[in-house]
């Protein structure tokens, strides 16, 4: 076991450090730099980083990437150094993470040329239209209809839980195009322009006051007949194409580790009976109990990364990352609420003098509620448990899910 990267990668790291020192010096720009200047500078930096093979390593050059051999160690070094210097990483949008891999694997050549370079450059913004009201994990019950009328698909229905829909230029979505074919088999994967009269986006306010999600109402929305990825009725299959590059499918424990460090700070800052809460034996026990889970997840993730790099089987733990993170987030959130005490009664979005004193607590309160959203966002915990039980432990499939999917 070894947490160093070995001499062969020292040069790589040295080159990367040199590149960053030159192109992203001292955390970025000078004082008083405008937002626009910063955005432009980041874009310039990204283009250079792609040119050098540090970003978009998994995207072919012809579509705007740097087309490098997959190398999990290089990927880890890049992540570390970019994180350390706060250099702009690959854009995190769903277009890059989900649509681009799908197009690269299953798209027509003209589709790749039209959509991939503009997406990786950040010029095309995407949202995802899978979920519908009344069909969460059950894609077989999808109701949004796409009908081929002349040389256009005419789409009617409703999507929900869409992030960034307001800014998006396009949506990749699943529609039922073959009404006579049952269940999964009647679904197609369509690309739909968002800026058209038939598409209405309505923000979904969350219980913590945030508005990350949207509903999308599709009323005779239109898209060209050939803006379909894969064949008619193959949409379900196409939608399951996932990112197969050096960073993919590997447990990442950064979130829980950071959240844990945060709650330790909160416990240091919070007073109980005049003394820091972190001196309270019960708080110490709870923190150490949570840290057991956090460090387990952290080093289990390192192990998975190492094994993925060497092409070794990740084992059943690979099905568990989401639920592990959710569980940790939930425990941290509950402890934070205990630490917040009175501040847990103030609306995190509230204004006013008393609200001012909230300071850092404000974000913890938002976080407390958001931890519930996280539990739900990655498929509810129960869906995760089905996956773990069935794929991880080899237990039989659910009766109803099996019946519904016709498999």
């Amino acid at each position, binding site marked *: 076991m070894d947490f160093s990267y070995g001499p062969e990668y020292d040069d790589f790291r040295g080159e990367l450090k040199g590149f960053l020192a030159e192109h992203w010096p001292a955390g970025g720009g000078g004082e008083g730099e405008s937002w626009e200047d910063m955005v432009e500078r980041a874009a310039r930096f990204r283009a250079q980083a792609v040119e050098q093979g540090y970003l978009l390593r998994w995207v072919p050059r012809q579509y705007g990437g740097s087309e490098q051999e997959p190398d999990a160690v290089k990927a880890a070094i890049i992540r570390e150094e970019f994180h350390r210097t706060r250099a702009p990483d690959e854009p995190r949008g769903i277009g890059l993470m989900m649509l681009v891999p799908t197009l690269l694997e299953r798209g027509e050549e003209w589709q790749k040329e039209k959509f991939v370079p503009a997406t990786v450059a950040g010029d095309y913004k995407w949202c995802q239209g899978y979920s519908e009201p009344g069909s*969460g994990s059950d894609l077989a*019950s999808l109701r949004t209809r796409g009908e081929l009328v002349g040389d256009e698909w005419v789409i009617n229905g409703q999507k929900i839980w869409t992030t960034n829909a307001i800014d998006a230029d396009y949506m990749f979505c699943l529609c039922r195009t073959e009404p006579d074919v049952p269940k999964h088999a009647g679904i197609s994967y369509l690309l739909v322009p968002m800026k058209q009269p038939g598409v209405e986006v309505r923000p979904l*306010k969350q*219980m913590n006051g945030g508005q990350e999600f949207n509903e999308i109402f599709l009323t005779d929305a239109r898209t060209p007949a050939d803006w379909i990825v894969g064949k008619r009725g193959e949409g379900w299959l196409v939608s399951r194409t996932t990112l197969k590059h050096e960073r993919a499918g590997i447990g990442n424990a950064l979130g829980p580790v950071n959240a844990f460090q945060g709650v330790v700070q909160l416990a240091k800052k919070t007073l109980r009976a005049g003394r820091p809460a972190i001196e309270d034996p019960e708080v110490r026990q709870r923190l150490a109990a949570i840290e057991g889970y956090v460090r387990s997840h952290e080093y289990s993730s390192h192990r998975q990364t190492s094994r993925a790099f060497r092409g070794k089987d990740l084992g059943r733990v690979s099905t568990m990352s989401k639920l592990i993170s959710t569980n940790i987030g939930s425990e941290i959130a509950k402890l934070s609420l205990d630490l917040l005490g009175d501040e847990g*009664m103030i609306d995190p979005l509230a204004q006013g003098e008393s609200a001012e004193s909230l300071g850092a607590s404000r974000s913890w309160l938002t976080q407390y509620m958001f931890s519930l959203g996280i539990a739900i966002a990655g498929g509810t915990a129960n869906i995760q448990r089905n996956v773990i039980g069935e794929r991880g432990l080899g237990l039989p499939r659910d009766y109803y899910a099996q019946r*519904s999917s016709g498999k």
Partner: protein
Amino acid sequence: MNFDTSEEQELLQETIAQFVANECPATRVREIFDGDTGHDPAFWKGLMELGLGGLVVPERFGGAGLEVIDLALATETLAYGGAPGPFFAHSLAALAIALGGSDAQCERWLPRLASGEALASVAFAEADGCWQPEEWQLAPGLKVSGAKHFVPSAELADLFVVGTAGGGLALVAAGEGVSVEAYEGVDRVRRMGTLRLDAAPAEVLGDAALAARVRDAACVLLAADAFGTAQRLLDMAVDYAKQREQFGVTIGHFQALKHQLADMAVEIEPARGLYWYAAHAFDHVPEDSARYAALAKAHISERAMQLGRDAVEAHGGIGFTWECDVQIWFKRAMLDRAWLGTPDVHRARAADLAGW
């Protein structure tokens, strides 16, 4: 032995439930929640006309002369309905005066509080979570100065029962030397504010034992509120499981969810007995009064908060939206849990009171 509600008590709960269902159904609760004041004057007037302003006010001062158990039962039912406004603080203030006020104080305030002509609140919390009478620092006197936080319905109140150093209470009327800075609480149907007193005229209320007694009553009422809140959260989750379909059946068919709902029910259902006994002990078993009040507040507010999390999860994505009513009761549970101190504070108190 009859450890059960009387017919009168059942009638009281039914009457309130019916009134809330008619005058403040979930749609109306939602309007108040999304509004700016957390208060519905017409609904409040109706509650007062029902006599809920004076449940524990002696009959000779225009009240019903009932006990804390009755007030707690009313509180549960109102919480289940999501009733907005100052009921908790108003009732607690009236109880404080009824328990400890001089004849003059009672005569001056209780009839008006019972009728709803005046509205009262309680001002306990000082900075850094100092909620308990033993922790108060605000100097008593004929003029009082200082700040009290998390005062319910502070903007609306005509009268404040204010905690003072040494574990005393004082009556301070709105007006001279009194200002309020309201803020938005997480529970948008029960707004709070900071009460700032600047040489405000004050009268001493009751003797040295009164404040602790009022604190115990507050524990019982918060427990009752949390119980009603938790019941509503449970029922919402169960109802949703009976309606929402997935894979061609209602999701209540899925054993995992069914068992989670069963576990939620097991967490909260028996707690009814705990808050009942805490209220009963307040009224009739002095040696158990403080201890069971602390235990009930800690246990039930903790359960309600967890039930809120569980109910959100049981609703899936929709449970996390502002539009979904779950958040209204979820946030009610947050207030019941934090007001007067978090559960660990009251567990520690219960352990001390048990003589461990």
